[in-house]
């Protein structure tokens, strides 16, 4: 069962290599129109980078996503904490959060277009709707099981409600918040692409348009960038989590 680090790494490299080889062979057989092989995608990718539209659109889309996602965090974290600590709030809000979680992002897109048009706030609102539920529920689970002794300390120092949130609850919830933000971000990126592909604007619009191309190489290149961004953002948040709450991983490994 136990493998050395080098063994692990070489197996991982082998797995990636096999996947790329299978893709290359399948791509050669099917042709560029159906599935461009990695070698063709690499060539197209250099072209995409040189053209500049890809990175420009990505930056523009991310800016809008960031606004929606930041709002989701700003509202979701206090809301989740309140739900976790006050039974009445939980009873009122929880059913609606569950409904939000099962409702597809794609389904609210037509409604938001009527409500907000297709401008800045439309995309921010779709991203918000898609990510806020995950942030709320993760924070909620943390707040529900918070150590009572921590609250007692806060009470002993006669902290007010806001002080209690900022100085006791929030630090105790860091691990949960980091997890919630990570899961929320995955859904925010998904929602951004859904919203943009629907209105054919921004990065999602670019994906949609390159789908009409005769070669699938640029399309695959765009997907690669999205993949790299998603993985990088996830790793960055993990790092930030380790910084903010270094006790988190220790506790996990102790379990």
């Amino acid at each position, binding site marked *: 069962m136990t493998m050395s680090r080098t063994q692990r790494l070489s197996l991982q490299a082998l797995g990636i290599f096999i996947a790329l080889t299978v893709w290359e062979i399948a791509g050669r057989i099917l042709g560029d129109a159906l599935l461009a092989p990695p070698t063709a995608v690499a060539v197209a990718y250099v072209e995409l980078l040189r053209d500049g539209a890809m990175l420009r659109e990505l930056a523009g889309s991310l800016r809008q996503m960031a606004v929606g996602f930041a709002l989701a965090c700003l509202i979701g974290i206090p809301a989740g904490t309140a739900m976790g600590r006050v039974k009445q709030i939980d009873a009122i809000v929880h059913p*609606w959060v569950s409904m939000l979680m099962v409702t597809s992002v794609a389904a609210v897109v037509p409604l938001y277009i009527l409500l907000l048009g297709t401008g800045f706030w439309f995309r921010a609102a779709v991203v918000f709707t898609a990510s806020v539920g995950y942030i709320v529920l993760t924070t909620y689970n943390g707040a529900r099981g918070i150590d009572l002794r921590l609250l007692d300390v806060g009470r002993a120092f006669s902290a007010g409600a806001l002080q209690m949130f900022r100085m006791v609850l929030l630090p105790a919830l860091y691990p949960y918040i980091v997890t919630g933000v990570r*899961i929320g971000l995955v859904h925010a990126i998904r929602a951004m692409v*859904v919203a943009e592909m629907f209105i054919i604007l921004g990065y999602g619009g670019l994906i949609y348009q390159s789908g009409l191309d005769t070669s699938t190489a640029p399309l695959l290149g765009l997907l690669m960038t999205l*993949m790299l961004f998603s993985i990088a953002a996830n790793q960055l948040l993990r790092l930030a989590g380790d910084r903010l709450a270094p006790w988190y991983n220790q506790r996990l490994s102790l379990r």
Partner: protein
Amino acid sequence: MSANKAILQKEHTQSGAAPERVAPTSRNPARGSGWSQRPGLSYLISLAAGVLVWELVSRQLPGVVFASPLATLQRLVEDSINLKLPLALAHSLGHMTLGFVLALLVAVPLGFLMGRNEKAFVMLDPVVNAIYAIPTVAFVPFLIIWFGLFFEGRTALVFVMCVFDILVTVAAGARNIDPSLLEVGRSFGVRGWQRMRLVLLPASMPFLFTAMRIGMARAVNAMITAELFLATVYLGKYMQDSAARFDSAGILAVIVILCAVGLGTQGALKRLESRMLPWHLQS
């Protein structure tokens, strides 16, 4: 690995159960009393409060962009009686079910392979995580090229949208099967098919149900996504038509239906789980 953890965490948040390391709630009750302790009553109060907020918001906005709850209910009842909505829903469930079943057939065996064979896990994990990181809707142009705009394309989108979530959950679950259960099996000398049936399968049922719940949520999501992003049909067409007429009641009616389908399938799977696995304690 990262995605697995995230998924398990996600499952906790979705099922509403606290992560294991959290102290039991009984020892640490949140404040509350009276109506909030009675699930049926508090659910009704919550519904009423939400509908009231909806009503108040809709009064501030013109009816074309945000219909009131009453207008939405009226549309829901009207188009249910003339069978427009029920027929569309019945058609929609077709590609949803097929895509979901196909995803289960592929992801469950592959997940077991990854979960029970360390070498396979180490090899496949980076590849699965890489593909999983791409938002599934971005595959739509591909699916159109490969499967067309109609039934095959819709089924393919449902399949792609749920297969990775199921795979990652099953792999994480199978990796974490309690070793003591396997040891008991070994000491009683069960192997081969018997081991599968008497040890592995019962030990796997809880996370298989979890995987099904996560996959089903994605499948409902994918169902309407497919109807809006490929050829617009059934509920998707109903939504698009309503949007073109600036008829927000129609859009909201579909959202209500999708919500009900989502909650209904989750509830049904949970009920099935507690009936089939009474030994698996749910909080």
